[in-house]
């Protein structure tokens, strides 16, 4: 894999010259948070961001999109929401998130909507620095070796640019003069130091090795009932999770008249009707049962199939859940720690 050097001041020139036809999407500020958004103004691109509110899965599978149009007799596929895009500024954890989604959407019956969006999106990764909620080191997703076309490591004096695919190489060849192939010893030393410093910067650590066993052993502990009581069943954890893929499908017509559209939209297993079948039978009526599915799926079931959890350590559930139910608090509680979480405060209030 080739590694090149790019001057800091040349980044926007490069991005501008490669995004003449495809849309450029990058992290931009929204309030005090960040979102992936189409770039209209290069000065709005944020280079030192924490996690975006919604992960880049929204570009591969939009929260709501039209799968088919139909008339009186037939469904016709609709791919019109898919356009050529370059996604700049995606962090290692989120690239791992996409690789996790690939496993699901591409295996057995490949999902043509996901595949087409994926194929039309170039991934330009960007290095980041952990805040107190990041734990990608624990999930081993702080390092990325595949899944990107280019990866930019943001060092003090310049970017180091990894070329991850032939399409990435093509981008570089559009403006070869901006890139320097000759890395000095000083450049290399700077990178090694940066990498070592980053390893030490993590404040949150979770033991994912023992988690599948703990999930199994503690499946019936009262803990789950307690968390279930506190859960608002709002589904936010799934909306912000880079590896949550569940969706619903519905047909929409105007006043019941055809033609219409078959719409696909994000769903969450924590929502009440998730496992309900026609006739009213609900296989997971209790919130605790639905939370168990969310957590066992990611931290146990996925491990049994792919040898690692489907959590990528982005910390979004930590900053999103209104009642403090997240991978960290659940993992710590299962390990036996008394965690400062909403459900503990809640039960204290109740028993007072």
């Amino acid at each position, binding site marked *: 894999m080739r590694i090149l050097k790019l001057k800091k001041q040349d980044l926007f020139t490069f991005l501008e010259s490669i995004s003449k036809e495809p849309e450029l999407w990058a992290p931009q500020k929204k309030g005090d948070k960040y979102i992936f958004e189409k770039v209209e103004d290069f000065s709005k691109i944020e280079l030192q961001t924490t996690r975006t509110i919604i992960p880049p899965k929204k570009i591969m599978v939009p929260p709501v999109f039209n*799968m*088919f149009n*139909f*008339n*009186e*007799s*037939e*469904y016709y*596929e609709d791919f019109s929401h898919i356009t050529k895009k370059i996604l700049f500024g995606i962090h290692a954890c989120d690239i791992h998130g996409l690789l996790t989604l*690939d496993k*699901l*959407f*591409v*295996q*057995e*019956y*490949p*999902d*043509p*909507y996901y*595949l*087409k969006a*994926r*194929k039309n999106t*170039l*991934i330009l990764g960007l290095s980041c620095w952990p805040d107190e909620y990041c734990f990608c080191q624990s999930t081993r997703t702080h390092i990325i070796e595949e899944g990107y*076309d280019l990866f930019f490591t943001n060092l003090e004096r310049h970017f180091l640019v990894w070329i991850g695919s032939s*399409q990435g190489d093509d981008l570089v060849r559009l403006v070869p003069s901006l890139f320097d192939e000759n890395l000095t010893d000083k450049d290399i030393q700077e990178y090694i130091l940066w990498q070592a410093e980053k390893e030490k910067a993590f404040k949150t650590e979770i033991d994912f090795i023992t988690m599948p066993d703990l999930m199994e052993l503690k*499946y019936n502990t009262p803990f789950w009932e307690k968390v279930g009581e506190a859960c608002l069943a709002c589904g936010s954890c799934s909306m912000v999770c880079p590896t949550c*893929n*569940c*969706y*619903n*499908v*519905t*047909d929409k*017509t105007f006043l*019941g008249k*055809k033609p*219409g559209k*078959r719409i696909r939209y994000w*769903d969450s*297993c924590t929502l009440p009707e*998730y*496992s*309900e*079948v*026609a*006739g009213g*039978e609900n*296989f*997971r009526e209790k919130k605790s049962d639905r939370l168990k*599915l969310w957590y*066992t*799926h990611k931290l*146990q*079931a*996925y491990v*049994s*199939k792919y040898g690692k959890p489907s959590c990528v350590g982005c910390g979004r559930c930590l900053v999103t859940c209104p009642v403090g139910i997240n991978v960290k608090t659940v993992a710590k509680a299962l390990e036996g720690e008394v965690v400062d979480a909403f459900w503990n405060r809640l039960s204290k209030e109740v028993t007072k």
Partner: protein
Amino acid sequence: MIVEKKTMEQINPFKPEPARIVRTYYLTEDVKFFQVRLVDMDRALSFKYKPGQFAMLSVLGVGEAPFSISSTPSRPGLLEFCIRKAGTVTNALFRLKENSLIGLRGPYGNGFPIEEMKGKDIIIVVGGLGAAPLRSVLLYCLDNRDQFSRVSVLYGARRPAEMIFREEYFALRERGDLECRLTVDRDDTGAWKERIGVVTTLFAYLNKVKPENTYSLVCGPPVMYKFVIKELIKLNIPKNQILMTLERRMKCGIGKCGHCAIDYIYTCLDGPVFTYWNVIHMRELI
């Protein structure tokens, strides 16, 4: 970027194919029989499936839902479903008249392990609408009668009017190469000549069961499984030869939408047919 898979990409597995309702009539007050044929005649004849598999049916403008196929692949061309009126899609299906167009895609799911079942004794235990998926395998066994040893059916319904396909069962019994026992919880007609009682009471009629050589197929309402399995275990039928087909919410049928996930499997891909051994080792199955 991921590698392009050209061949697979040309097929949209979510796209329903146009199908026509050839025939529909009521089986009970709230269960209707549908005979459906894919509009494309070549596709209709080449549509290959296994007993126990299911299809996704779409009512244009209303939505899509999974239904087990009640017909047998040994009689190609027409697909049959028996459907209970229970939700929005089924309500819309019930309103459709013969010759209406619907959407169909599939078949999905693992189906029954027909190859393993060949040469074996088959005991089919049915409760109520469980007759829908089990009819497929029963007719398959009867159409290929010499490939199977003894074939027995134990069928329980709440009352005679709720026993779907009862006339078909009476007719099948005339063949003489099938043991068929029927029972209802209560007889409100006064004309019921078969047994009265729950389905487990029919086990008394089974004699000389050779458990190692027997496959038992069970489908019915959730409450039924516990009691039926107890009887089958009493007969020493191996746990991996007790098969059941289960229901879950499904929005895709192909392992993408997530709704039918149980532990590390998807009911739509790894099921809907599971062994009792699976059930013991997987939480939330039944």
